[in-house]
């Protein structure tokens, strides 16, 4: 375990060196958060009865999403790993006395944590200063804060486990960037990035909420604002645990199968 944690730390420390990139990222996050709020505000002012969330809960959702983007997005992937697989350098990785799955999942966690660490505070501070229903407010009850923390950790792990599935699938398909981008666009829709899941039409919404994609950002971000509370929150968290276990298991099995028939060309 020790060695995986130090791998995570290594990636984290390397990641927080890129401050200029983070600065550009933060500016972008302000702009995108602001734009989303502007768009939803129009619909909110238009028709409050059909608005499926509290405006404050939605603003919390948007700002947390912007600040913690690196934790929950499926498309935060490391090109190094794809190159390793397609170029065959994965052979070196296999020589190490470590488990490949653990190694990759921990380094992915390190990368994501470093990015989030640099970006989240400036986003949150400015968002907290915005006027009432459009800024970021503390969770309504200490209970929802605790549940949010638990659910956020699970959501983060879900996102990492999902990106592991993407890496592992590269063993079977080889690169093909187009297919990957195509899938990630669909995931964006199903995870609540394009529009929050409560805004989906009834019928579709109930199905989407059960899919693993809703376990990434949808659950924690809605628990924070109290949009999901009580027994529903418990249900959402249990679902997160289930998908986490399922995706890790699937990832490990697929990786083992891929490695059992892998042929690394010399050179």
């Amino acid at each position, binding site marked *: 375990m020790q060695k995986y944690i130090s791998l995570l730390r290594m990636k984290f420390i390397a990641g927080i060196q890129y401050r200029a*990139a983070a600065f*550009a990222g933060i*500016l*972008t996050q302000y*702009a*995108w958060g602001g*734009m989303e709020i*502007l*768009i939803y505000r*129009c*619909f909110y002012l*238009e*028709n409050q009865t*059909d608005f*499926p969330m509290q405006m404050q809960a939605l603003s919390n959702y948007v700002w947390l999403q912007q600040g913690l983007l690196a934790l929950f997005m499926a498309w935060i992937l490391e090109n190094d790993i794809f190159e390793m697989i397609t170029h065959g350098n994965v052979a070196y990785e296999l020589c190490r006395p470590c488990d490949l799955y653990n190694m990759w999942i921990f380094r992915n966690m390190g990368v994501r944590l470093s990015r989030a660490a640099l970006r989240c505070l400036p986003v949150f501070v400015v968002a907290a200063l915005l006027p009432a229903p459009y800024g970021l407010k503390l969770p309504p009850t200490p209970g929802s804060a605790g549940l949010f923390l638990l659910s956020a950790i699970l959501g983060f792990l879900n996102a990492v486990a999902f990106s592991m599935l993407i890496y592992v699938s590269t063993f079977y398909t080889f690169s*093909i*960037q*187009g*297919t*990957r*981008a*195509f899938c990630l*666009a*669909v995931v*964006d*829709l199903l995870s609540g990035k*394009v*529009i929050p899941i409560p*805004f*989906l*039409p009834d019928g579709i919404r109930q199905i989407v909420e059960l899919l693993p994609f809703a376990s990434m950002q949808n659950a924690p971000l809605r628990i924070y604002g109290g949009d999901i509370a009580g027994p529903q929150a418990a249900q959402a968290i249990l679902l997160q645990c289930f998908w986490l276990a399922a995706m890790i298991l699937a990832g490990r099995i697929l990786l083992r199968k891929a490695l059992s028939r892998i042929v690394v060309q010399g050179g």
Partner: protein
Amino acid sequence: MKLYLKYLKIHVQSMMEHKASFFLTMAAQVMTTITAFLGISCLFLRFHSVQGFSYQEVLLGYSVILFSFSLAEMFARGFDAFGSILSNGQFDRILLRPRNDIFQVLATKVEFTRIGKLLQAFVMMLYVIFTSDISWTPCKAAIVVLMIFGGAALFSGLFLVYAALCFFTTQGLEFLNIFTDGGRELGKYPMGIYGKAVLRFFTFLVPLAMIQYYPLLYLTGRDSRTILGLCPLTGFVFLIPCHALWKFGVRHFVSTGS
């Protein structure tokens, strides 16, 4: 022009060497804009209208923006990669050739994968034309075409600014994407719905409302002044200061030496 066609032919040929990759990339891009379209549709299933604009009217505005943004991306993408053109010394070579520098940068890259997005914008537009209450006249059709090309000019101008600033920073300034991608994002809806401050910004600073919102007011009969239909010309006027900035940058250009 003949030379540009020749460049185009070379780009098509090189692309056809990797057909599968071309179609997959195109499909992926269309998917991202289709999810955006689905997002709008979901919101309209719930709310039916936003500040009096119907689904069709909003889609008309969005398809114009998507159309012009994709056109600009397709033909003016060379500016986007300008940071690397500068840093690897390719621009020194460009300056030595007896052709216009902007022309050569434009010709370095043509993104045919954007055809998918253009097609989607076109389909959305057809849907609007056949289902909306707008009574179409040749004049109104001409205005839509003007909007598309004015918008393409405007977005190209923004790409040009992006490239011109590279002369001073050598690297691309990524946060400038806020104006291009952000403009496309807010352009999903008529630009006037976001309030006065936003509308003013997009009227006077980055005149995106001139190519989308004001002509849309005329097309949907909210405002009967025909002059609004000519607003998209601002997109072409916008190119003048952008070009000036580029010229200024070229004059200050010091080779990176590699």
